[in-house]
C-alpha cells in the first residue's frame, strides 16, 4: 500500500506542467527536488537520464500494454518515476546500441572528413603554377563548411514552413528506411512522436556533426602543414576581376586576421604581393601562417566550441525532461492514480415480489405500500402457479437473486392451502436468512388493490397458525388513509 500520504505530494507531480509555469520553478525535470537542488536546477540522484536510457524508455513505452505499471511512492519526481518504470519494464539495450552506432558513425565520418580536409588542402595546390590558390583554399576549406552550417540551421528553422519541405522530409524518411530497414519504422515513428527524445537526439547529432566539421578543418590544417613542411610551395591568387577581388580579399584577410593581427603581424599576408601575374614565380610564403591560424581560429576552434555548446544543450535537455508527451502523461497517471473503490452493485435492499396464481396488481400502487409499510424495496416481479412454464422458471431463478427479501403476493379470496403451502415451502427453503412476507390483498379490476374481507382474513390467519414454526410474516394489504 503506497497510498499514504499521496495527495499533497503527488498532486504537484501529476500536474506539474501547469504548476511549474505559474510558479516559474527553474528545474523543469524534478518537481519535488529539495530546495537546494531545485534552486540550482540540479536533478537529484536517480533522476539523471542518458540518451541510451531515453531511447530504451521510448521503445519500452511503445510496447507497453497500458497495464501493470508500478505504484509510485510519495515524493518521487516525474523523471525518477519514469526511470523506476523503465527499470521494472526492463531495458533491452537498444538505446546503448543506437548510441554506440551513432558514435561509430560519427567517428567514421570524422575520419573520412579529416581525410577529405587534407585532400581539399592538397587539391588547391596548382601543380602547374607550383603554388596554392589562396582564394580556392579559403573558399573550400573555410567558407564552404560554414555555408553548410548556415544552410542546415536555416533548413531547421524553416522546417515545415516552406513549400516542398515536406517532400524533403519524405525523402529523408525513405532514405532512413532504406538504410535502417523496415523494422526501424516503429523506432523512427517513436522518435518523431517524442519531442524530448527528438530534441536530445538532435543535440547529439549536432554535436557529432560539429566534430565531423572540426575534423574537416583539422584535416585541411594537417594537409596544409604537411604541404608546407615537405614541399617548396608558393601562395597566390588570380582572377579576371583583379581590382574587385583584391579589395574583397584584402577585406577578408583583415577581418580573418583580426584576432591575431596585433600580436602576430607577420601572420597577416600581403594581398597585393601575392597576386599571380605573368611574371609570378613563387612567393607569398606569408600566407601559410595566416591560413593555418585561420583554420585554427575560424575553423577548428568555433567547431569545438559548438561541440561543447551542443553537449551542454544535450545535458540540459536530459536534465530537464518533463515527460509531458501524451503517452508519458498516460503512464504517469497510471503510476500515480488514486483508484476509487467500486460502488455496491445493485440494490442491497432489493426484494422480489412473486404473484401467486396470477394475482396481478399495479406495481405503481403496490410499491409505496411495500416501501413504507413493509420497508421492502421491490426490484423484481415474477409469477408462480401459472400455466406458462417459462414464468415459473424465471421466478425460481429470481428467488436466488433477491438480496433483501421475498414477498409472496396472494389473493384473499383464493386460499388453496396445498398450493400456497407448497409455494411457501419452496420460497422459505431458498430464502435462507432473508425476510419472507406473505402479502394478502384483493387486486381490483382496474389494477389497484383492495383490502381483504374480514372472513378471508380469518381464513389466512388460521392457515398460517397451522404452519407452526414458520418464519413467514403474514401481512394484509391496507389502503392508505386519505
Amino acid at each position, binding site marked *: 500500500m503506497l*497510498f499514504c500520504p499521496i495527495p499533497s505530494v503527488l498532486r504537484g507531480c501529476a500536474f506539474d506542467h501547469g504548476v511549474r509555469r505559474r510558479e516559474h520553478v527553474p528545474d523543469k525535470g524534478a518537481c519535488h527536488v529539495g530546495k537546494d537542488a531545485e534552486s540550482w536546477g540540479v536533478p537529484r540522484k536517480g533522476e539523471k537520464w542518458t540518451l541510451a536510457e531515453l531511447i530504451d524508455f521510448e521503445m519500452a513505452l511503445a510496447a507497453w500494454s497500458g497495464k501493470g505499471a508500478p505504484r509510485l511512492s510519495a515524493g518521487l519526481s516525474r523523471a525518477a518515476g519514469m526511470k523506476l518504470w523503465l527499470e521494472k519494464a526492463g531495458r533491452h539495450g537498444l538505446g546503448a546500441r543506437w548510441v554506440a552506432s551513432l558514435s561509430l558513425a560519427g567517428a567514421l565520418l570524422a575520419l573520412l572528413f579529416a581525410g577529405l580536409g587534407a585532400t581539399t588542402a592538397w587539391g588547391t595546390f596548382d601543380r602547374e603554377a607550383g603554388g596554392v590558390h589562396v582564394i580556392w583554399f579559403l573558399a573550400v576549406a573555410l567558407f564552404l563548411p560554414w555555408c553548410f552550417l548556415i544552410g542546415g540551421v536555416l533548413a531547421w528553422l524553416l522546417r515545415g514552413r516552406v513549400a516542398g519541405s515536406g517532400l524533403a522530409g519524405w525523402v529523408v524518411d525513405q532514405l532512413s528506411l532504406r538504410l535502417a530497414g523496415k523494422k526501424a519504422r516503429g523506432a523512427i515513428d517513436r522518435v518523431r512522436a517524442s519531442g524530448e527524445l527528438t530534441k536530445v537526439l538532435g543535440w547529439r547529432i549536432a554535436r557529432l556533426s560539429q566534430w565531423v566539421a572540426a575534423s574537416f578543418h583539422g584535416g585541411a590544417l594537417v594537409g596544409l602543414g604537411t604541404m608546407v613542411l615537405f614541399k617548396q610551395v608558393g601562395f597566390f591568387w588570380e582572377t579576371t576581376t583583379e581590382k574587385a577581388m583584391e579589395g574583397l580579399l584584402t577585406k577578408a584577410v583583415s577581418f580573418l586576421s583580426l584576432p591575431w593581427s596585433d600580436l602576430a603581424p607577420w601572420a597577416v599576408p600581403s594581398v597585393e604581393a601575392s597576386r599571380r601575374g605573368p611574371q609570378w614565380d613563387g612567393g607569398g610564403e606569408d600566407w601559410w601562417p595566416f591560413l593555418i591560424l585561420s583554420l585554427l581560429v575560424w575553423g577548428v576552434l568555433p567547431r569545438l566550441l559548438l561541440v561543447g555548446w551542443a553537449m551542454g544543450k544535450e545535458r540540459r535537455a536530459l536534465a530537464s525532461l518533463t515527460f509531458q508527451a*501524451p503517452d508519458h502523461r498516460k503512464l504517469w497517471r497510471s503510476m500515480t492514480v488514486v483508484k476509487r*473503490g467500486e460502488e455496491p452493485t*445493485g440494490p*442491497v435492499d432489493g426484494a422480489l415480489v412473486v404473484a401467486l396464481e396470477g394475482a396481478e396488481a399495479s406495481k405503481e400502487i403496490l410499491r409505496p405500500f411495500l*416501501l413504507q409499510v413493509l*420497508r421492502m424495496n421491490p426490484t423484481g416481479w415474477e409469477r408462480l402457479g401459472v400455466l406458462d412454464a417459462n414464468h415459473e422458471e424465471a421466478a425460481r431463478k429470481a428467488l436466488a437473486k433477491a438480496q433483501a427479501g421475498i414477498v409472496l403476493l396472494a389473493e384473499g379470496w383464493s386460499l388453496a392451502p396445498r398450493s400456497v403451502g407448497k409455494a411457501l415451502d419452496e420460497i422459505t427453503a431458498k430464502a435462507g436468512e432473508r425476510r419472507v412476507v406473505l402479502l394478502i390483498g384483493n387486486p381490483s379490476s382496474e389494477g389497484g388493490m383492495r383490502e381483504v374481507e374480514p372472513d378471508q382474513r380469518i381464513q389466512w390467519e388460521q392457515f398460517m397458525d397451522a404452519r407452526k414454526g414458520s418464519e413467514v410474516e403474514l401481512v394484509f394489504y391496507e389502503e392508505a388513509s386519505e
Partner: protein
Amino acid sequence: MNEWWKEGVPAFVVVGRVNSGKSSTLATLLEVDDDDVLRVSSTPGETTGVLPLPVVFDDEEWMRFFDSPGFQQPVQAMREIERIAGNQAPGPEDLKVFVEECADQYPDEVRLLAPILKGAGILYVVDPCKPLRDSFLAEIEILRWSGRPRLALLNPQSEPNENEEVWRNRLGTAFNLVRTFDAHSAKYDERRRLLQALLQIEERHADRIERVVEAMAYEWDQRREDASEAMLDFLEKALSLRTSDSIDERDEGIPSRRERKQAALSEEYFSKLAKLEAGCVNKLLKVYRHHLIEPDVDPGKHRGLDLATGETWQKWGLNRMQLTTAGAFAGGAAGAIFDLGVGVHSLGAGTVIGALGGGVAAFFKGGQLPELKVKLGGGFKLKGGDGKSIVVGPPASLNFPWILLDSMLLRYRGILQRAHGRRDAANFDESGDESIVRQFPSERRTLLQKWFNSCLKGSPDRGKEPDVFAALVESLKEIEDQ
C-alpha cells in the same frame, strides 16, 4: 457487504425526516447517480434500511457513510426514551435500551439509531425552508442524547425564507457544527468543505478523514487532466478530419454530379464530427461519474454544435478582434522565423507580412458560416478511367476550432454543475451560455491558434502539444473556480 459495521473505520450516519434529502445528500457527496444503489425520489420512505456506503481508495476503506430510513415517529420515540430514562436525563444507555426493546414499535428509529450507538457520527439533514415543528425538536433531542459528534446540514429544497434563521439558532444549541449543503447543486468545493467539516467534529479519526479529503483532491486533479486529454484528442481529430472520395473526370465536368458528391461528403463529414463530439462528451461524463445523461449530439441536424446556424458563430468562439489578433500573432511568429532564418536581412518584413496575412485572413474569414473546404486533387488512375479525388473539410472559417473548444468547455461547465443527487436525465442546455474562450488571456489564444493551425493542416504540432495540454488544464481549472 457482509459486515455492516467495521471497527477502526470512521463512520457517519445520515439521518433526518423522511424525504428531507438524506439519500440525495449522500449521492452528491459520494458521486453516486445510480438509483439502484441510492434511491432518490419524491416517494416518502424510499430508504428502507441502513445502507452502508464505504469510501474506498486504493482498495482500502478509509471511512464509511450510512444512509438511513427517516424518522417517522420522533415525538413518540422521544417519550418512550424519556420513560426508559425515568427521572434522569436520557443518555446513550437509554437509547441502547430503546433500540433493544422497541424495534417492533419504532422500526425506523431503531434502525437509524443502531449505527449511532455503535459509534458513528451524525449528519442530520433538514430542509430549512420548512417550519421548525415539535417533531423536529424531538429528533434533535434524541440525537443530542446519543452524545455522538453531530453536524447539521441545511439542505434547502425551495427558496430560502425566514425559517432558516430559526433553524440555525435551534441547531446551534444541539450540534457541533451547522453547514449548508444543497444536494441538488453542490459542486466539488462544497463536497470538500463538507468533508473538512467532519474533521472538525470527529478528531479521533482525523488522519483517515484527512486522507480521504486529500485523495478526493488528487482524484479531482486527475479528472481535470483526463478531461483535458479527452478534449485535446477530440480537437486534434476534429480539426484533422477530412472526408474524401474519388470523382471521375467525366463527373467532375458536370456541376450537378460534382455538387451531389460534395453534398454527400459534407454530410459524412458532419456525421463523423458528431461522432467524435459524442465520444468526447461521453468520456467527460464517465470521468465525472455521470451515468444518467446522454450526450445531446444529433448527427442529422448536428444540434450539438449547431454549426449550421449563424448564431453559433456569433456567440461562441472568439470575436472578430480576438480572432484577428490571434491570427496576426500566429502569422507574425511564423514570419519572424523566416526573418531569423535569413539573418534579419529581411528587416522584419517576414514578421510584418506574416502578421498582416494572418490578421487579414482571420478578420475576413473568421465569421463566415461553415462552408466546408473542398479540394480537388490527386489525379490517380481509377479502374474505369482517369479520375481525381475530392476532399471535403474542415469548415473554412478560422473560428471553427474555437467554436469546437467553446462547445466542449461549456459542456464541461455543465457537467461540473450537475450534482449526482439529481435523478433527471435533462441534458445540458448551453444555448444561453456565453463564450468561455473569449475570456482567455491573449498568450493562450495565440498558443492555441498556432496549434489549431497545425491541426487544420493535418500535421499537429507535437512540440506545442504539451503546452496546449497545460493551457487546457489551466482553462478547466478556471472554469471550476468560477
